[in-house]
């Protein structure tokens, strides 16, 4: 007969041994666990000790992020920016790509071109140089001529003279290909209409004016002349008319011709007094006066070349006190960029404040859609159609022009 597993062999009903030590240990353990749980549940969370704060010796500066989100959406004019940087003339796309050295050892302050063949003309320390597509340079114009301004389109150039020790109104019309020069009686500043073959320049009376250079005076003209190559320039705005609009003693500090040559913008005023930009039709009729903020002087004025419509950009910089004679790139103060529409006479602020601090270059895009301002920190681009689409371009250098690719 088999046995069931676990079947006790015998029964013992005697009480178990008390074992106080064993029970005590078990009770202690159970008590400890229970106490721990109760403590976790009911003990109030104490306040932490005051933290010890150690201030860093220098600020840990997270650099301000530049908004680049809309750079791609900006119409970049189809061409690269032309800049001068570290003694080189360079071209680079607005988004910083395709940087290319156009010419070495050129400190350009103004350029005309490039044309379809890639040839451009640069004003370099008073000398006018033709720069071929392969980067070779050739000086054009008389050896004795030192220029202070250069404008033009294609082969036709107008260079105005550096007034230091020379006649202030002996400009030259130059052929960019042959270098042939024709004198024309007007002085700096000068302007050229991109599509009309019309130029404008400054006429007398010439007066030495303080407040432009740190030491000494600068001869400034008091009238505006308009002309065409091969014809004698005529007076568009004489000294009397200029004084009537811009105040007694007003001088001309900047000129811009609309692409069709029908409108002339004149920045007029005198250091220490209010400046304004006058817009005059080519027949001499006054169109508008754009007053500038107190202490501000136009650094650049320029017309956009947009099919069907144009806009005038006025870049006004704060020139109060010591800022009056400061180099552009060294100037530490604000300014603003205003776009004025001849149709309707309305205006809009395209940029102001920080982008204008130390601004040293300015250009419209070739399609007239965007405007760029350079400063030592970079290039600021504003799409004219919507100033909300503004951005900083990762490009450095002093902006000279923003032509289309293969401009005529």
């Amino acid at each position, binding site marked *: 007969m088999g046995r069931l597993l676990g079947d006790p062999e015998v*029964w013992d*009903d005697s009480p178990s041994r008390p074992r106080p030590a064993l*029970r*005590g240990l078990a009770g202690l353990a159970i008590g400890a666990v229970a106490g721990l749980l109760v403590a*976790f549940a009911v003990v109030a969370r104490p306040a932490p000790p005051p933290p010890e704060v150690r201030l860093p010796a220098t600020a840990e*500066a997270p650099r301000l992020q530049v908004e680049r989100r809309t750079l791609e959406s900006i119409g970049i004019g189809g061409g690269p920016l032309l800049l001068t940087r570290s003694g080189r003339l360079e071209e680079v796309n607005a988004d910083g790509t395709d940087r290319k050295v156009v010419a070495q050892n050129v400190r350009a302050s103004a350029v005309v071109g490039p044309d379809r063949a890639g040839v451009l003309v640069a004003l370099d320390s008073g000398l006018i140089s033709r720069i071929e597509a392969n980067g070779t340079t050739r000086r054009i114009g008389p050896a004795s001529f030192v220029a202070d301004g250069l404008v033009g389109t294609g082969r036709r150039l107008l260079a105005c003279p550096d007034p230091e020790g020379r006649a202030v109104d002996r400009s030259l019309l130059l052929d960019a290909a042959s270098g042939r020069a024709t004198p024309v009686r007007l002085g700096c500043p000068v302007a050229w209409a991109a599509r009309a073959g019309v130029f404008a320049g400054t006429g007398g009376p010439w007066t030495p004016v303080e407040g432009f250079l740190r030491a000494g005076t600068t001869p400034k003209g008091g009238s505006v002349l308009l002309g065409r190559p091969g014809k004698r320039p005529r007076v568009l705005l004489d000294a009397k008319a200029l004084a009537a609009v811009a105040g007694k003693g007003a001088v001309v500090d900047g000129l811009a011709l609309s692409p069709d040559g029908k409108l002339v913008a004149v920045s007029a005023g005198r250091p220490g007094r209010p400046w304004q930009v006058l817009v005059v039709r080519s027949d001499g009729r006054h169109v508008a006066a754009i*007053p500038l*903020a107190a202490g501000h002087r136009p650094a650049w004025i320029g017309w956009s070349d947009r099919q069907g419509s144009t806009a005038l950009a006025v870049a006004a910089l704060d020139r109060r006190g010591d800022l009056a004679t400061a180099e552009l790139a060294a100037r530490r103060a604000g300014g603003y960029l205003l776009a004025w529409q001849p149709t309707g006479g309305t205006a809009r602020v395209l940029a*102001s404040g920080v982008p204008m601090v130390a601004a040293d270059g300015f250009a419209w895009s070739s399609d007239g859609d965007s405007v760029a301002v350079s400063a030592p920190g970079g290039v600021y681009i504003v799409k004219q159609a919507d100033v*909300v689409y503004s951005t900083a371009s990762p490009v450095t250098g002093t902006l000279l022009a923003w032509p289309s690719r293969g401009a005529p």
Partner: protein
Amino acid sequence: MKVLRRVDRGPEPLVEAGQGRRRAALAVTVVAVVVGLVAGGVAGERVVGRRQAARGATTGAEDVAGAGAAGAWAGPRGTAGPIEQLRGAGVLLFTDPEGRAHARAADGRDHRVLGQLGELANRRGPSAFDVEEAASWLAAPPDGRAVELGTDADQVYLRTEDGAAAVGRLVDGSVRRLTPAGWRSPMAPRHSADGSVLGVCGYRLGGEALPAVTEATSWVLDGSGTRLATLPGCLYDVAADGGSALVADPAQGRLAGPVPGGQFFGRPPMGRSDQLTRGLRLWRRDGGFRPVLGFDDVVRVFRTVQPGAGPSGLVIVAAVLATDGRQALVHIADTMAEGDPRTGPEREVLALVDLERGRAEPIPEHLPAWFTFLPTGGLVWTGGAGTATYLPRDRPPQLLRSGIANDGVYAVVPSPDGAWLLLAGATWRFVRADDPSVQISYPAPGRLATWAPEPGR
């Protein structure tokens, strides 16, 4: 094999054998459990305390990032930047959608609830849609804060849902309307730094065909609500010391003539009004007025950004006084401008007015929005291109931040000492005024009302 005997039951003994040992075992067990409970409780308490200290939490349910490995305060959850630099920078007073007012140190510590006010519940920022279109040309607040709290963390300056300027008190939940019955106010009351002087702009709408502001009157009151002055036209700001207030100059209104009404593109029609502000004067508590901005200057300043603007539609819609009372920032708008404000003609301009010399100069900026002075004398403003610009005294402008439209910024508020600027939006971004590259941010715990000094400072 081991055999175990079944014990035969006999009579119960009087004292069971081994009972003493069993009682001792029971006592030992009970004592052990009690000792264990005590020991476990002590150990548990210590463990809990140590964990808390390590976490560095202070505010119970507050969102905190806690302390770093070295024990340094890391700020509220989501903090970016050197939060320790905000220590001692003041106390931020803010509200939540439930109508509670809170206080918290700028570095995120020491959060406390100040009180609750029904009027604070579900407050949105002021908007042009909150007031009638015609009245929005009379006055607008210089920033988008829904309410302002006094530095005593008790007084609340607000505009009630039905459009009355009012002062509430957190301590007893009371709200006192400051405009008479039938009058509305385009913004919350303006006040001196200590709240002892209040200024209220009130208006009434009328008009035959189109709604127009037919009456505009301001009241200057002391802290108890007693009227110190009743002035024609709108009041825009009260000086920090309570000694003066910036108010409309009716003489300039007469000079400029009524603002024409009409139907303009993209906004409701507005009737003709001779109550809108064309110039400013300074009301002085010790008696008299002083003209500070004439209509000629308003036109001159506006024409620097809009050369062809006609004068008839130009009005002053906002103005704030500098802490020292020597300058004012004035917001000028053209009621007759048409077109898309983003891409159309410039329709607004900020002007900095030297109150001593009465000279105004423009601050050109596309679509200026919020603006304020710093206690140190600089000024800050935001623009339509999504930038916040700080102009220190006698130094070039500095970019505080770009792309602020994405941050939902509704106010730029300086710290009490002027060392920091707070761009208040969905995120609170603190920017050091002397070095804007130093920025600290964390998610906004509520809607900002005031940046008050540390208690005792």
